[in-house]
């Protein structure tokens, strides 16, 4: 007796369109990716207690109160641009390590925007930032 053999269809997965899908994914990622450009400045802030701080006569002091900026021993009030110019003229880059320190004293009502601009100006003038907040100053006195 002659038996008919059944034709068995082999299961075939059609992978022909895989490359199209892959390329579509690549195009999607390329178009939707946004690269973050970071801008700013890196700085190190020396830490220490108020007792270990070198004498203040070698250091310049910037005081921020609200929107007001005062600079130096005479607490001369100035604008941000004037402060930038003054810091640039101070040539901190040419000074010794002890004399490059700029003390930044700030009251609680100062916004980060102003604080940031002053810090960046000090950094740009190659000064070394030293932080003092008013509580410390009060304790010191």
């Amino acid at each position, binding site marked *: 007796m002659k038996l008919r053999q059944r034709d068995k269809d082999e299961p075939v997965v059609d992978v022909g369109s*895989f*490359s199209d899908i892959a390329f579509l994914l690549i195009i999607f990622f390329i178009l939707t990716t946004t690269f973050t*450009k*970071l801008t700013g400045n*890196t700085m190190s802030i020396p*830490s220490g207690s108020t007792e270990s701080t070198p004498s203040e006569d070698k250091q310049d002091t910037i005081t921020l109160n609200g929107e007001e900026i005062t600079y130096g021993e005479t607490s001369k009030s100035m604008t941000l641009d004037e402060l930038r110019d003054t810091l640039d003229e101070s040539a901190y880059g040419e000074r010794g390590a002890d004399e490059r320190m700029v003390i930044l004293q700030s009251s609680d009502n100062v*916004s*980060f925007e102003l604080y*940031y601009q002053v810090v*960046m100006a000090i950094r740009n003038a190659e000064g070394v930032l030293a932080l003092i907040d008013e509580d410390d100053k009060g304790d010191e006195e």
Partner: protein
Amino acid sequence: VNIRRKRKPASTIVPIASMGDIAFLLIIFFVLTTTFAKEAKVKLEMATSPDITKLKDSQISVTQDAEGVIRVQGEECEMKDLKQKVQALVAGKDKKVVMLKIDKDLKHSAFKQIFLDLSEVGADIALVGQKEKK
């Protein structure tokens, strides 16, 4: 009679069978090398200054949004735990750089402790902001 056979014209078919493999390799490469910004969900307005330059990405990030919420590596953190957390992250690293982003409208009373803590840890602070034209 010796008749020369005509040469077959050169094939102009470009083999594209391996294109799919190349595409998948590219996808695998991008998937493995992409790092997502840890603080992507944090919404804050950056401070601006003309005195800034390009900054290299740092592996440690500290952010403080407009409501004063502090996040270390994208996870919320109390101010009292900040120093300890950053200390653990910078331990054993050659470059102790901490990327710091703070909302521009925050007041000094809210962010001053971050600076003091990072300073005590001995970390360099990469202060992130936006470039402003002079």
